[in-house]
Each structure stands twice: as C-alpha cells, then as structure tokens.
C-alpha cells in the first residue's frame, strides 16, 4: 500500500529555518539523510522531495484565453508543505510509524511537527 507522508511547516517555518544555528541545521540534515537511507534500504521508499521556500511559490490557473494567470500564495495560509515522502508499505500502521519518526527531525521547538499521512489511490481491486 502506498502512502504520502507530508511534512508541513508553519507559515514562518522557512524563515525560521534560515536562522537555525549550525549544529541544529547539521543535525536536521543528518537526520533526513539517515531516515531516507533507512527507508530505501527497507525497500519502502518510492520517492521523496523537499520543496523550495514558498517565497517563490505562485498560484496558477488558466485565464479565459487558456494562458496562465499567476498570483502569490494565499496570504491567509497558516501552513505550507515543506516536503514529502511516498512510501510503499505493508499497511497503514507502518506508515504511521514512519510518519512519527519523520516528525522527530531535529529543529527548534519542543513539539514534533505534524506529518499528514494520506493513502494513494491505485488501479487494483480486491478479489470478491
């Protein structure tokens, strides 16, 4: 079963991240590398990406002539997607376990971040 684990960050998360002390930045990077390595070695990693700062982000839709109209991101957005993993695991429990581990990435603050776990649709059906 495939799941997407989405790591969200508060609106000011990226700005704060830039101001982290060197040791925490290094610890965070080392954590992510090791986490991805373990996922890959377990044969569970389908893909993972980190997203660039929302400073550069645009909202886009087609105008009447079909050409793109762009706008800045929603000013009222409280959270942004910072990165995601797609994993292929035996069941939801394992996905939750991985999400919990991902949430403990070193950073500033006492609480682990929330990681949103979503099932990925597939073309298969179960035998009846």
């Amino acid at each position, binding site marked *: 079963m495939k799941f997407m684990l989405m790591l969200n960050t508060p609106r000011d998360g990226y700005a704060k991240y830039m101001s982290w002390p060197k040791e925490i930045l290094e610890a965070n990077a080392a954590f992510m590398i090791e986490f991805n390595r373990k996922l890959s070695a377990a*044969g569970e990693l389908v893909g993972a990406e980190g997203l660039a700062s929302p400073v550069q982000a645009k909202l886009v839709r087609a105008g009447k002539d079909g050409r793109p109209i762009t706008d800045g991101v929603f000013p009222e957005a409280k959270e942004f997607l910072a990165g995601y993993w797609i994993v*292929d695991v035996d069941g939801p429990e394992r996905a939750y376990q991985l999400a919990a581990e991902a949430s403990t990435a070193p950073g500033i603050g006492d609480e682990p971040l929330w990681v949103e776990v979503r099932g990925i*649709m*597939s073309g*298969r*059906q*179960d035998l009846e």
Partner: protein
Amino acid sequence: MTSTPPDLRVELLLRDFAPQVLGALVRRFRDFAASEDAVQEALAAAAAQWPRDGIPDQPRGWLVQVAQRRMIDHVRSEVARRGREAAFAEETPLAVAAALAGESEIDPDDTLLLLFMCCHPALSPASAIALTLRAVGGLTTAEIAKAFLVPPSTMAQRISRAKQGIKASGVRFQMPDARERAQRLSSVLHVLYLVFNEGYTTSAGPDLHRTDLSNEAIRLTRAVHRLLPGDGEVAGLLALMLLTDARRAARTGPGGELIPLDEQDRTRWDAQAITEGVGLLSAALRRPQRGPGEYQLQAAIAAVHDEAPRAEDTDWPQILALYGMLLRLSDNPMVALNHAIATAMVHGPQAGLELLTPLDDDERLRGHHRLDAVRAHLLERAGNRQAAVALYRAAAEKTTSIPERNYLEMRAARLGAAT
C-alpha cells in the same frame, strides 16, 4: 503457438527454466543469494543472445553452465577476498572446494523447494512476493518494479532484504518434513494468491502496461500443481484463479470502469478457462479427503457463478451453503460479508442486513469500505434508497481503489437521481 514472436518465445522459455537452473546451483553451491544473482545474469545473457543467435540445442544446460561460471567467479573472488582478510580466513566455507569441482544437477522438485524458501513465513508478504517473482518466476527486478509501480532501486532493496531474511531464518534448501510441509505449502499458496490478487486490476487506463501478474500467478500455480497433482488445495487454488480470470474481459468496460458480476456480458467469459477450472475442481473434490479446503470452496463458489448462463440463473442456495462451509473453516470477515450477500439473495435483504450488524464490532473491518458497500447494496435491494446512497458515498470515500471508488460513486449517483 507458431505465431509467438521469437523474443517472447525465448522469454517464456527462460522463465520456465529459471527455477530449475537456480535449484541446481543452490544445491551445489548452497549460497541461495549469490546463486540467484548468478542465474539472473545467465538469464539476461540468454535474453540478449538467443533471439539473435538462435536457441542452443541444450538450452537448460547452457543456462546452468553460464550461471555456474558466474557463480564460480563469485566464489573465487570471495575466497580471495577472505584470504586477504586474515581474520575471516577460517570462515571460508568448506563447500567451496567441492562446489568448484562438481556438476550441477536438475531436479524437478527444485521449483517446489525454492517456493518453500521464497514464501517462508519469516518474510513479509511484500518481500515474499518480490522474491518469488524473481527467483521462481524468472522476472527481472525492473519488471517486478514496474508491476508494483515502484522505482527499480526500491524493488532491488526489497529483494535483497528478502534474501537476508531467508539467510537469517536459517531455512534450508531441502524438503520440510511431512508435518511442516503442509504449513509451508499453505504459505506458498497464500503468496501465489496474493500475486494473483495484485494482478486483479482494471485492464485499461494507467495500468494498461502492467506486467501481467495474474498470468504469472497462474503459471506458477500450474507448476506447483504439476509437482503435487494429488493436492486438493493446489488444484483448488489453480481452479479459483482460472474461474476468476475467465471473467477478465467482461469485468471492465471500455473506459476501465468496473462492471459487477450481475451486469457482465457473460458471452465474453472465457469458456475454455471455465471448463478447465471446473474440471480441476471436480477432480479435486472427487478425491477422498477430510473435506474441501478454503481454495476449493472459493473455487466452487466461482464455478457456480461461472456456470449460470444469466445472473438470474445463479444457484444462490448452493453459494450460500458453500459460504457457510467456508465460514466454518476461517473467521475471515470478508467471507462473513459475502455470506451476508448470499443470505440476502436467498432469504431477502433484511436477513442479510441482520448478519452485518455483528460485523460493526469487528476490528478488522473498522474503516474498511467493503462493509459500507455491502450494506449499501443490501439497503438498495430493500428499497431504502436514501440510506443506500449515503453508504455508497461513505464507501467511496474510504476505498483507495480508483475503479472501486468510481463504481461506488456511480452507484450512488444513479440511485440518488432516481429518488
């Protein structure tokens, strides 16, 4: 089959030989993981050369020789490496010297021994499936990765972990004793069933080019049936696969949409597969035994469906009796759901709905779409449209299967529009 293109003919031939060649190597060198890699290399060499140069006179001997040469190279470099690492020198296996001199023999039972290894209960289902498809099915890592829609590197890791799991479990390449054998065979059949189920996807849309896992499962189960022709459950599983796969062409519409059993165009069912499945099952049921196992019962249910010329001709009392027997063998909640449907078909929707009530407390069905879907279906039959629409929608929200979601949404929309 004279029209089969040469490349495909070679591929099918290679995949039939794969477990035989691997068995010969494992018996000689004892190192399953390295032998398996050597066989994959030999298969790849053959896949490149044979379509160009023609199939050798002794194709299996050719493969054994090439695989053996790779394996001997591997053993030599291991010995050299260990020689350099003095600390490990005494761990050099004594089998190596003998292995370098001997001959690799083919034994038809090797396929079975390999299945017992690859489907060992110490492995997770995903690992067992991947390893079985590669080591016994002769598929490449890339093909398996494509079938499961994961990157090849991920599949390679999964296979290598599965091999480590086999090593750690200490399972040996030999026939388990009679008592353990039955248990291990049931693990093998379960993995083959899962492979078949993985292949049970819509045959249109994004999955059009999926490696055909259902056919692969049927091919491997056929091989097991050839080796154990007297085993009723092996025959039952093969019959179940054939009787289910027979409906493949009728199961999906032109847009990949799911067509339920009672709406399928039965003229599109594969009569040959049905005849074969029914024949296998009848022969298995005629044999004196303690009573039919789960696969035989499931196959019998599939056969009753397949033998009805029209949906309204279905012998539901017979299906209900078979689900009753199945329920006594296993406490699978999916069987209980199907039993409720059969009950509704025989004794009316209310009787079916009553059987669903206790299932609300079953942990294994919590959040599962099928309980909602079955209840919606029975409510629809009972004429309670509004409740049915709500439950079809609830089920559609819970499933992660695109064809099932589309089907459930369509069902809700159709019913909602009619009210």
